């Protein structure tokens, strides 16, 4: 009887223990789930990508506008107003070709005047000769001398006058016309018929010397170039085509990518703000010889460089930099009490090349199927737990 009683008590006690035990385990279990969830919520959220094997075609596009190598302004030689403009803008002119005729009347009138003066002088000279003959007959040496002198001086005057007329005559032929000093193309007509001009009348471009433009190119891409190399240049516009240009000058440029003049590819994207890449640029001058080129034409240089070898390509945003070099965070899973937990792991990488969107890194053992963290809700640290 006692035994039965005590066994009943025992069973009751066992039940209590079982209840307590299941409570204890239950609370811990709930807590594990709960704290895992709570911790999960406070973890930085990340977006990952798997790096694609492949090579990065590193593209560069830079635009610039063409500038002539030699372009001259032809000035009105005489100051007369142009009477006839023979050239038209865009005309290709040969050396010596007449471009503008100027008003001749003023010059012709002056010539006439001078010629009249000459005639007058010639008449005067007859008089003097007679005077001299007279004086010569006399013995007045002084008078003879004076008469000779007068005659000599008139002779000089005469020749001077003749010279002047000659000058006027050439002036009349030369200065009343504007001729092309070299073969080239008229780029602008500044003169207007019958209106006197005091500046340049014609702008003429030397087509033999060609066109040129300056452009900044990332140093890495220009590394293999030397002066004199040919590069392909695209002429922008309606009939865009490729023209060959030649490098005439290369010099290192200390300016950063961001303040490039013709803002070639410095499109402001968040990544480049995040990671200030101080890309080294090279100033390159390219000259081109194509008759059809116009100054101011937009030209574009397109470069493609393949970041060679076994590389992985990933978003540029994923690659960070510290004092030891470039690194990425990979998401690594470790078994936890409730399934896998993910941790950020810092891995240094060798950057082979990059463009504004993507970065190519050297293939290494760890990164074959690593999940690389592209974005995270807060800055990550090595070994930090993360969630997706």
């Amino acid at each position: 009887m006692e035994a039965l009683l005590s066994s009943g008590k025992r069973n009751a006690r066992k039940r209590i223990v079982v209840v307590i035990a299941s409570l204890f385990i239950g609370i811990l279990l709930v807590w594990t789930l709960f704290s895992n969830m709570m911790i999960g919520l406070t973890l930085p959220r990340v977006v990952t990508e798997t790096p694609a094997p492949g090579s990065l075609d590193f593209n560069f596009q830079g635009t610039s506008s063409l500038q002539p190598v030699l372009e001259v302004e032809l000035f009105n030689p005489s100051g007369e107003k142009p009477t006839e403009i023979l050239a038209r803008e865009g005309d290709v002119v040969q050396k010596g070709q007449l471009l503008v005729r100027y008003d001749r009347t003023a010059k012709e009138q002056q010539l006439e005047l001078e010629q009249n003066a000459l005639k007058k002088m010639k008449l005067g000279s007859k008089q003097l000769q007679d005077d001299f003959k007279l004086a010569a007959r006399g013995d007045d040496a002084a008078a003879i001398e004076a008469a000779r002198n007068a005659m000599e001086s008139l002779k000089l005057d005469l020749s001077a006058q003749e010279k002047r007329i000659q000058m006027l005559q050439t002036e009349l032929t030369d200065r009343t016309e504007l001729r092309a000093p070299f073969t080239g193309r008229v780029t602008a007509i500044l003169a207007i018929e019958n209106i006197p001009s005091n500046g340049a009348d014609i702008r003429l471009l030397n087509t033999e010397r060609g066109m040129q433009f300056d452009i900044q190119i990332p140093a890495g891409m220009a590394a293999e170039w030397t002066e004199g190399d040919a590069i392909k240049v695209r002429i922008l516009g309606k009939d865009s085509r490729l023209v060959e240009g030649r490098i005439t000058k290369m010099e290192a440029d200390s300016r950063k990518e961001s303040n490039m003049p013709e803002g070639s590819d410095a499109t402001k994207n968040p990544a480049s703000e995040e990671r200030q890449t101080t890309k080294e640029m090279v100033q390159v001058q390219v000259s081109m010889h194509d008759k059809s080129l116009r100054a101011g034409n937009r030209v574009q240089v397109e470069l493609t460089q393949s970041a060679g070898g076994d590389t992985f390509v990933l978003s540029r945003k994923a690659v960070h930099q510290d004092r030891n070099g470039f690194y990425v965070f990979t998401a690594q899973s470790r078994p936890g009490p409730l399934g896998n937990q993910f941790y950020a792991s810092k891995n240094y990488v060798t950057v082979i090349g990059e463009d504004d969107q993507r970065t190519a890194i050297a293939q290494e053992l760890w990164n074959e199927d690593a999940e690389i963290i592209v974005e995270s809700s807060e800055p990550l640290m090595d070994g930090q737990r993360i969630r997706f």
Partner: protein
Amino acid sequence: MTISRNLSRLLLSLFTGLVAAAMILPILLTVTNSLMTEREMSFNYGLLGVVTDASAQAKFVNLKLIPDWVTLSQYAKLLDSTPRFLQMFWNSIKLVVPIVVGQTAVATLAAYAFARLRFKGRNVLFMVYLITMVLPFQVTLVPNYLMIERLGLMNTSGAVILPGVFGVFGIFMIRQFMANLPYVYTEAARMDGAGHGRIFWEIILPLTKPGLAALVILLFVDYWNMVEQPLIFLKEEFDYPLSLYLAYIQESERGVIFAASVLYMTPMVLLFLYAESDLVEGIEHSGIKG
């Protein structure tokens, strides 16, 4: 008659109570101190291990049974900001439960052979078993390490569980119980022509129940407390059991050591409370009388 009996019972109870109180004092201390704030902890025990100048005024640690302010902050901190604690708790369960179940099964079988069967070499084999139980872990660590590596178990939980399953303590304990059982129990069955399997299953096993209960408790305690094997044979920290957390508790975590201890002890205490009734439920209740 009954008065003197009751008096002696009272005196004995009082005496035993005193002993029990002394025994439980450190545990009580652990529990009550686990309810202290961390500040109180460091105020009371901050001087531990600190070398103080003898010339200065004598200062001592302050042993306190009742906290000034009862709080669960230690537990909160432990469970909340130490996620690995919970993880290690489950790890412990994952390691210990298979070991206890496995060893109990394997040991019960082997113990029957050692206790009830007579075969040549029994005593020598038993002695060899015995030696391995007594030797410290380091003695066989080097060959053991080699063995576990060769078996491909390194850094898996198998490296801890399997040696545990084949541990010899259970054999000793159960053998002891089985050997004690009077042969009269089994003789009748033998006469009826029952095989060893039946005898084992139908007669011996039920009679060994208190022994099994004791074994489960002791094994659970033993393996819940193991330190070296998981440290050396498991690689990753997230596989480590709770015993490692407590064995290598950091100075900075002293504030939570008592709370951690309480949580650590709870499964063992519960198991003990549960199995205790089986422990005393001896032959007298099993219906068989000698």
